[in-house]
């Protein structure tokens, strides 16, 4: 069935990104919003927009019941969940099915089979796919934990089956640490996810995080679209992603891709999904988990494959067969993504909500921005601090790093703090440039650099005189209010006009 109207059950850049895809496909869009988001771009750019409730997600974007009601009343045939919020909620997917509204993603059944980490590990075994050694079911007791740990050997990792974002996760290097870690991980998981189920796996040292994008239609076809390298993480949160990985060759890509496709097919998976792996020094890869939705970092795959994943998601949900075969997937060039956050890296990564008083965005060759902000937008304190995704494409890794740095130099966000400078630091770092990265890389860089922050760079000294002059000129203009209003034609008397005229020429 071809959709004529889709409801987007999300906010921010991803809501806008899905709206753009719908518009390109001639499909009308329905936006939903909380009180904090009435002035958000995804509301204005949609064809229809309906209020959900107050700012907290539990009263708005997590209200599946309200969202389904709006979908029904507005006549939307499908719901795109984006990422986060309800995107991996099997109950919501099921409620959509029952309401006769297509959930753009896998079935509730496939989501359940792959959403729990322990069940996904069982599925991996069935699909004959390498995973980290360890348990595939919840640990029944501390004794069982000791037993498994001895079997696979320390160091080990305790993880919550329902986990995400590093919660309920503990690295254990020696037997003595296991008992207390077991108790605390269980209770943390219970609090965070409503399930205290934890399991043990072998800790892979200095692994890379490599993930495979898969697409499966409802006719049994499934393909992989190459890998993404997501090793640059802070506290298990991805910061920079790229495609392809500098260490994955064609042969490894094929093996990982085949494993990912096997897993997806074994669970009857449909639509877009991502199979995450750890890759160790020796080039062995281990299944980590599956994300049963579109990922934040999907654009890097789009740039190297030339495909549009959201278009494909919609076509698949409409019941269309995949328009391409595995051998039609061509990878070309290199892409990189920076997740721009409202946070202050120089101050413990404190979040920094508030009004964006100044915004200069980059453009030009090889630059894509998936943004959910504008000058004047008040970044709400209620959600994830992601402002925008800056994505660059170039023929080689070296050139895409240079291009991203160029774009970062053009970027200014004023009024709130952002992590723009963090990206500059990483992209200038020799280890990053040589692709010597693993999931611990960024934490090491941050620790190393914290010692050298006192030194002013040559660039700062260079800019000192113009900066002081600029401040003095702004101050002079501020006296008559011109600094703030000189760009509009409406303000003030002739004296002010004359002064501004001189400035603007």
């Amino acid at each position: 069935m071809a959709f004529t109207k889709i409801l987007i059950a999300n906010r921010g850049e991803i809501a806008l990104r899905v709206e753009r895809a719908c518009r390109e496909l001639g499909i009308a869009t329905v936006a939903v919003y909380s009180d904090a988001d009435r002035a958000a771009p995804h509301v204005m750019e949609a064809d229809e927009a309906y209020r959900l409730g107050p700012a907290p997600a539990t009263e708005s974007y997590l209200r599946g019941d309200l969202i389904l009601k709006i979908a029904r009343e507005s006549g939307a045939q499908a719901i795109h969940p984006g990422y986060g919020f309800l995107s991996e909620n099997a109950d919501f997917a099921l409620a959509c099915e029952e309401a006769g509204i297509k959930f753009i993603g896998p079935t509730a059944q496939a989501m359940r089979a792959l959403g729990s980490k322990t069940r996904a590990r069982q599925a991996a075994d069935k699909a004959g796919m390498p995973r980290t050694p360890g348990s595939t079911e919840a640990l029944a007791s501390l004794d069982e934990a000791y037993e498994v740990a001895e079997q696979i050997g320390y160091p080990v990792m305790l993880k919550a089956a329902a986990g995400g974002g590093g919660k309920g996760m503990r690295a254990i290097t020696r037997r003595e640490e296991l008992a207390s870690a077991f108790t605390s991980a269980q209770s943390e998981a219970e609090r965070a996810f409503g399930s205290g189920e934890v399991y043990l796996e072998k800790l892979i040292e200095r692994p890379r995080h490599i993930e495979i994008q898969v697409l499966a239609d409802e006719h049994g076809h499934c393909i992989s679209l190459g890998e993404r390298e997501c090793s640059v993480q802070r506290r298990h949160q991805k910061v920079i992603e790229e495609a392809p990985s500098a260490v994955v060759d064609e042969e490894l890509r094929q093996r990982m891709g085949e494993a990912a496709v096997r897993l997806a097919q074994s669970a009857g998976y449909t639509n877009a999904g991502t199979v995450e792996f750890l890759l160790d020094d020796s080039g062995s890869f281990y299944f980590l988990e599956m994300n049963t939705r579109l990922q934040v970092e999907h654009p890097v795959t789009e740039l190297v494959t030339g495909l549009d994943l959201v278009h494909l998601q919609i076509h698949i949900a409409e019941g269309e067969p995949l328009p391409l075969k595995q051998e039609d997937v061509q990878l070309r060039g290199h892409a990189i993504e920076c997740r721009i956050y409202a946070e202050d890296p120089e101050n413990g990564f404190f979040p920094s909500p508030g009004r964006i008083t100044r915004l200069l965005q980059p453009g030009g060759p090889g630059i894509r921005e998936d943004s959910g902000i504008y000058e004047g937008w008040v970044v709400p304190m209620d959600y994830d601090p992601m402002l925008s995704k800056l994505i660059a494409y170039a023929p080689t890794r070296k050139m895409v790093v240079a291009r991203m740095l160029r774009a970062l130099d053009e970027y200014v966000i004023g009024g709130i703090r952002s992590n723009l400078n963090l990206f500059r630091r990483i992209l200038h770092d020799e280890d990053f440039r040589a692709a010597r990265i693993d999931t611990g890389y960024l934490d090491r860089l941050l620790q190393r650099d914290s010692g050298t922050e006192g030194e002013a760079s040559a660039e700062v000294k260079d800019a000192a005189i113009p900066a002081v002059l600029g401040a003095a000129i702004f101050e002079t203009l501020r006296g008559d209010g011109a600094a703030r209003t000189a760009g509009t034609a409406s303000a003030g008397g002739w004296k002010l006009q004359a002064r501004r005229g001189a400035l603007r020429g």
Partner: protein
Amino acid sequence: MRIEIEMGGQLRKVQLEQAAENGVWRASVDGESVTAEARLLRPGVLSLIVDGRSYRIVLEESAAEEQVLFAGTERMAYRVEDPRSLRSRRTHGGGTDGPKTLKASMPGRVVRLLAAKGETVRAHQGIVVIEAMKMQNEVKSPKDGRVTEIHVGAGDTVTAGDVLAVIE
């Protein structure tokens, strides 16, 4: 016009004068003569050419005493010490003696209080926990002392600069 600007820990004396030509400013910075060619492209965005070198100076809008600008990609905080400026007449922070106010550094919701009114606290001890964007942050005492006032309670919404408590 004379302005004193504190930037990067240095106090710079600036003498500024608009020349007859369009957008040309003759200045001296700490006694050194500089000619700058300036154009305000739009509010807060200044294109500055000094000796052939081109700079983008972007002012971050703020009602606060401390201003912030970006010179190229460098974020620089500054304070204007112009005697004619209203803002500099406000009392500055002062030393470590006397009562100190504890301010919210960002908007958020108060999750809980870690000290009660009247309690004796140590420097760097957490006083108020604020949550924003799924992260919790402790606002810490700037000095050893006693909590004499508490202006917020759990569940309150605060914006940056709000006074949370006073430590004496």
